[in-house]
């Protein structure tokens, strides 16, 4: 039974090898001439003010977390969409329940003002 998963395994193996290969060869063979001016943080051409990694307000982190939360939701749609025909009505209702739960979370975040910036 495992054979029919073989092509996927080969595909994954090939793609990771290719990706790793490209990065590693680029890293090993590419000429590296770091000069202080080149490695200085880029600030649209001017002398950078302060170090590159400065304190960032926490709101950016909040936005990132919210994005991940609601973006992963879409990932669960994919397997469902594949077997949508076989699941029939049960699958449809199941997915609606899933969406409603996430909608509750979304409305809660909205009302708490997490989406507002200031």
């Amino acid at each position, binding site marked *: 039974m495992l054979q029919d998963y073989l092509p996927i395994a080969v595909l994954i193996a090939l793609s990771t090898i290719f990706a790793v290969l490209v990065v590693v060869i680029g890293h090993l063979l*590419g*000429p590296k*001439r770091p*000069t202080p*001016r*080149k490695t*200085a943080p*880029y600030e649209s*051409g*001017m*002398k950078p003010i302060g170090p590159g990694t400065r304190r960032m307000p926490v709101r950016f982190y909040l936005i990132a977390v919210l994005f991940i939360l609601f973006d992963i939701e879409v990932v669960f749609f994919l397997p469902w969409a594949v077997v949508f025909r076989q699941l029939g009505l049960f699958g449809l209702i199941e997915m609606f329940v899933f969406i409603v739960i996430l909608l509750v979370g979304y409305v809660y975040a909205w009302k708490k003002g997490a989406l507002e910036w200031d």
Partner: protein
Amino acid sequence: MGLEQKLGNMGIVTTTLENVVNWSRANAMWPMLFGLACCAIEMMGAQASNYDLSRFGMELMRPSPRQSDLMIVAGRVSRKMAPVLRRLYDQMPAPKWVVSMGDCASCGGVYNNYAIVQGVDEIVPVDVYVAGCPPRPEALIHGIMTLHEKVKAEKLKEWA
């Protein structure tokens, strides 16, 4: 080395690493979005629908120097802009080329006075000078094709 004569020219089979690398560098050169003055409007004209720089693999004008290979100095460089230009040139990764577009960038052009750097080659090593004030989009494209020939003729020793 007589290898080429013996092998003959069978296209992809007998090409050398040098040709492949130079070919790929020449045809996928991303210019840096670095418009200064009037030549920048002609560069935009060259980038836009009528003259379409994307035919040369220059689809994107990358704003940051980190992701660009070619710096088109399009416009007059003033004394206040010179250190900025030099810093941007330094922050570009290794295989980088400079096209100085227009007379003001190439030799100070109409402005021979205190405010303009008389030619960008005082600040950055320039590969191709494009004449014109402002050069027509075709002139810029001709300059870029000349640069492609120059890149295709580069030797392995130069960039190893």
